[in-house]
């Protein structure tokens, strides 16, 4: 179907074997490689792993993000594209993409595209912006192009560059050539009933109808949110704990507050074993690193403690600093702990090496727990680079962030994040902490994405048993 199509789109609801289909499309050898584009580096990493696992030879495909591919092309044809990107400066992606969109539409590189690629496949097309759509439809004038997507999973929205409208833009350029209807993810997990329920829920949501969270009692567990906030919080932690106890070694994704990262961090600090899925820009960690930059001694210690309170439970910074005063003045009655010793070393004109020792010693304390492990690790790595005479701390953390962006995420088996952060990830179970929070209730698309993260069970907290209310 895909190999025969000149241009078209495939509607791919969550978990219906889209990645499998893409992998099969490039499995057999062809004269020229297939260009596969997607949106995020995480998406590229995931597709790459999948193709590698299926044993698809790397010569069969070229895999990139739309932005990354556009950046490569702008370096070749700045004059025809009408935009020059300084190769040393940070890429100005909106302008690069707009210029490459015009270039692809102009027909100037049609023959070269035909010479280079056999066809184009684009994943996650519902996340395509208007400029990205102009790039893809321009390439489609040169080579056969099939796009994959699901308008019900459209939850990205890039500032200043609106999403291409599925009906007026996308479907007009790429007519539907088929849709995936077998919920493989759930069938494979032995939860075919949940898979079928989600398909019909998707249909209902896309038609503007509401869904009843009580209509699939074996798989979907509705937890009403009452007026007692503390009871709700306790219940949210307990549900996750029960799943872990009943189904050890099974993964859980927890869909938390979409905006306030702090609220998700709070959840992770309360629920043992749950890690935080960090946004790729690690914004608060980059800020923390920039605050530490160039400091030493007491001020660096203060900055380290401030950082730890963002990623670790039971830091008790004030108590720690009082103890340092006592020990320095020989007024302490109990002997200093290893953590206190490293803190003192840092306090006494210590630099980055002492800061690293202090952070590591704090993390190894049984009384404390790092609930943002990836954030903690990236900081340690950045400090190590800076201590080794490498770049300054601010540059080091920016470098590491870019490397992570390229490498893709490794998600722990129990993780909390927003719908946006968890999109594309899958687990056996999903816990949705608040689906109809007043003022920021989940949209139909967010709701569908959240519901489809769990292959075996869904636990959902909301005020109303039917959503959208």
């Amino acid at each position, binding site marked *: 179907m895909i190999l025969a199509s000149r241009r078209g789109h495939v509607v791919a609801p969550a978990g219906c074997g889209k990645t499998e289909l893409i992998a099969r499309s490039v499995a057999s050898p062809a004269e*020229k490689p297939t260009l596969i584009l997607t949106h995020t580096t995480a998406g590229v990493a995931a597709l790459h792993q999948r193709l590698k696992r299926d044993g698809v030879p790397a010569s069969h495909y*070229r895999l990139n993000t739309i932005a990354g591919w556009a950046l*490569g*092309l702008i*370096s*070749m*044809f*700045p*004059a*025809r594209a009408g935009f*020059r990107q300084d*190769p040393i400066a940070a890429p100005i992606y909106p302008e690069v993409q707009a210029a490459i969109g015009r270039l692809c539409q*102009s*027909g*100037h*590189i*049609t*023959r*070269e*595209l*035909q*010479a*280079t690629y056999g066809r184009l496949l684009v994943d996650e097309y519902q996340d395509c912006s208007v400029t990205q759509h102009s790039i893809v439809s321009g390439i489609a004038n040169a080579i056969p192009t099939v796009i994959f997507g699901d308008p019900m999973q459209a939850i990205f929205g890039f500032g200043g560059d609106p999403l291409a409208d599925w009906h007026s833009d996308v479907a007009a350029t790429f007519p539907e050539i088929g849709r995936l209807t077998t919920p493989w993810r759930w069938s494979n997990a032995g939860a075919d009933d949940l898979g079928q329920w989600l398909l019909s829920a998707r249909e209902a949501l896309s038609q503007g109808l509401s869904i009843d969270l009580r209509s699939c009692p074996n798989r979907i567990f509705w937890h009403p949110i009452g007026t007692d906030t503390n009871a709700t919080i306790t219940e949210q932690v307990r549900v996750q704990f029960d799943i872990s106890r009943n189904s050890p070694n099974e993964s859980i994704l927890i869909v938390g507050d979409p905006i306030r990262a702090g609220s998700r961090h709070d959840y992770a600090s309360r629920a043992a074993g749950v890690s935080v899925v960090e946004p790729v820009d690690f914004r608060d960690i980059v800020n923390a690193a920039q605050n530490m930059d160039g400091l030493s001694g007491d001020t660096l210690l203060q900055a380290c403690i401030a950082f730890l309170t963002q990623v670790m439970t039971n830091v008790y910074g004030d108590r720690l600093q009082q103890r340092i005063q006592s020990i320095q003045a020989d007024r302490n009655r109990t002997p200093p702990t290893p953590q206190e010793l490293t803190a003192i070393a840092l306090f006494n004109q210590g630099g980055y090496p002492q800061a690293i020792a202090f952070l590591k010693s704090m993390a190894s304390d049984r009384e404390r727990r790092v609930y943002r492990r990836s954030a903690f690790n990236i900081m340690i790595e950045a400090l190590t680079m800076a201590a080794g005479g490498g770049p300054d701390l601010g540059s080091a953390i920016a470098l590491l962030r870019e490397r992570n962006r390229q490498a893709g995420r490794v998600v722990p088996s129990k993780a909390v994040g927003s719908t946006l952060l968890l999109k594309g990830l899958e687990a056996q179970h999903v816990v949705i902490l608040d689906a109809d929070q007043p003022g920021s209730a989940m949209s139909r698309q967010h709701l569908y994405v959240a519901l489809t993260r769990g292959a075996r069970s869904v636990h959902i907290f909301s005020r109303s048993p039917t959503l959208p209310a």
Partner: protein
Amino acid sequence: MVAICEVEIRNFRGISYLKWWPRKGLNCLIGPGDAGKSTILDAIELTLGARQSFTFSDADFHRCNIGEPIIIDVTLGALSDELKNLEVYGHFLRGWNPVNGAMEDEPASHLETVLTLRLVVRDDLEPQWLLHSEGAGAEGRERNLQWKHRQLVAPVRLGTVAAHHMALGPRSILGKLSADATQAAAALAGASRQARQAFADRGCEGVEPILEASKRIADTMGIRVDEVRALLDVRGVTLSGGAIALHDEDHVPMKSLGSGSMRLLVAGLQKEVGRSSIFIIDEVEFGLEPYRIVRLLDSLGAKTDDGGQQVFMTTHSPIVLRELAAPQLFAVRTERTTTPATTFDDLMLPETKVTTNVVRHLGASEQAQKTLRACAEAFLAPSVIVCEGKTEIGLVRGMDLWLQDSGSRSLLARGCHWADGAGSSMIERAQLFASMGYRTALFMDSDVLYSAETYAALTQAGVHVIRWQDGFSTEAAIFAAAPAAKISDLLQIAVDWRGEDAVDAKIQKLSGNRYTLDLCRTAFAEDMRGLLGQCAGEGKWFKDIEPAERVSRAVFAQAWFDTGIVYTAPVTRLMQWTGAWTVPVAPAAAGTAAG
């Protein structure tokens, strides 16, 4: 198939700078020996072939000036998909306009996508091959053509010696044919092992006593040897690529074919199975009879010009030229201009010599094709006298024979050939030759007068016009200038050519029966000159090479100093133009002939 669309050469051997846009099909280069034909072919072969083993020397630099690098840019068009691949060559793809030859930094829909290969040799004599683009995308990048793609563009060259093509070797056509060289290598290694085994099995008569003695001596010396055998030395039987050669059914190596046959065979192989579409042939006529030249040119696409392969060849044969289409012909020229030493603000500026190399094309006009067919020989000389018709050719040939009779070098030896202007075509033909860079003279009569613009255009084009004074046809000039004593000789030539009766009838008719042939012979009077000139013209008495040649050689040459300046002045200028006469040969004193 890949084809060269532009060649740009700097400081390579005889060429200081040259830019040429060859055609996609057959390109035949002609020109004098030092014009740089072979240099162009070498430049193409070296740049596309990338033979690391080639050793450059100071002599490869223009005027041995190693301060200026040799830079050869060969731009390839009609690229196959592999060469247009964005991910491999994207930064180096350029756009070329086939209409005006303009090169742009990046491809575009209205341009042909091209790649430029550059060969640079600096004073360290180390050749360096690179892809080249002026574009911003290529800035700071260095990339070469991938090895597998080299194979697509590396030309096959058929020099005058074709024998090496009959064996599998790195530079032979067979070597380029075999897709998998390693298979051949494995077969060779196997064959060499078998040879050693066969030798060991069969033994070699007469070595037994030597082996016995060797063993005995080894024993007595305390060297322990169980058995001594005579085997072929491993190094002695190593077969390399060149060891596989084509043989005919009698096991005679194809290398012993005649050189012509071998060249035909190689050309056929290249066209049918060659991987590179670029084929270079030196001296295409070498070793071939005319009918086989025609066959070879056919196989090279001289007639079809289908673009299946791009051929670069040189020739010195008019037979080859006659078989070509006019657009296939290119003349290579070296033009030297010398600026004399001058003083400028008390500063002595030394004399400067500037060499320019150009490639001029004959073009695609109908006249170009006719000229090529009719005047093939003239294209092979540096100087061309375009003669209005056969009469003028005859006169020139007569002068030439006179030169040779008197022991001077012939016009041909002076690099001068005549071409038939075929009457009204002469002006266009003269301009064609001039535009291709030939030193051109036009030898015409003056009974038909052209506009002043026409003569000015000829001069502008560099054509040296030689004609009789206004109003004189060639025949009129002949009879006006001939010494009275020679009139009967002229009439005899006419009689031999046209017959007694026809000449007599023409004289009687035009004179209103006042004169007869006999009267003109026996009682010639000055006032007959005009009439006879008219009769000669109308009666076509000398309208062919042979009679005109006799007029020139047997009449005027015998009485040059008695001949009138109506004839001698223009002919003298022509002879001076050819370089045969360096000083004016004084015309006869006025009086013997009417002026």
